[in-house]
């Protein structure tokens, strides 16, 4: 394993931890809004770290570009859907959770 490989492994593990945290949040948080918050961590940071990890292993710049495009698209979709769901839930009178 070269240094690059170690870096990749570290970034991948960090990404996996964010995915894990996102899932735990999805399961444990009390209402839709807080779950949205947990979810977007997996989208943005988890996938982002994994994309960076795989990008330093990629064979060409086009591959790097494609990886970044995938990440951007997932973030775009994730952010928009999170906004839409939160907005819809508020409009339908779903109360945000209070202690």
């Amino acid at each position, binding site marked *: 394993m070269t240094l690059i*490989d170690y870096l*990749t492994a570290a970034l991948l593990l960090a990404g996996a931890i964010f995915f894990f945290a*996102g899932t735990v949040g*999805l399961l444990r948080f009390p209402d839709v809004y807080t*779950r949205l918050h947990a979810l977007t961590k997996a989208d943005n940071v988890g996938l982002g770290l994994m994309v960076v990890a795989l990008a330093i292993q990629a064979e060409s710049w086009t591959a790097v570009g494609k990886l970044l*495009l995938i990440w951007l698209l997932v973030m775009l*979709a994730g952010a*928009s*859907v999170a906004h839409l769901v939160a907005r819809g839930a508020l409009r339908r009178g779903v109360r945000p959770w209070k202690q």
Partner: protein
Amino acid sequence: MQTLYLTLALFLLLTLGAGMWRVLRGPTAADRMLAAQLFGTTAVAVLLLLSQASGNAALRDVALVFALLAAVTAVAFVQRAWPEQEQPQETERDVD
């Protein structure tokens, strides 16, 4: 390295299975939809890992298509299938 990629893919698949609990429990339709959204992102990550593990660059295109279409089902839900009053849906009889 290959083992690491596959192990992480396996791990992500396991978190996906855990997230399934939210789909089963709800309680609202929005919660179920959110879980499905997380599955989409996880599937993208798994595909990228598998692509790296097998050295098959074409799998990135599959991930790209997933990323592009991740929003379509959710948009269909928000625009059409979300009932106007969000009643907590049926009490869950089939918790397992």
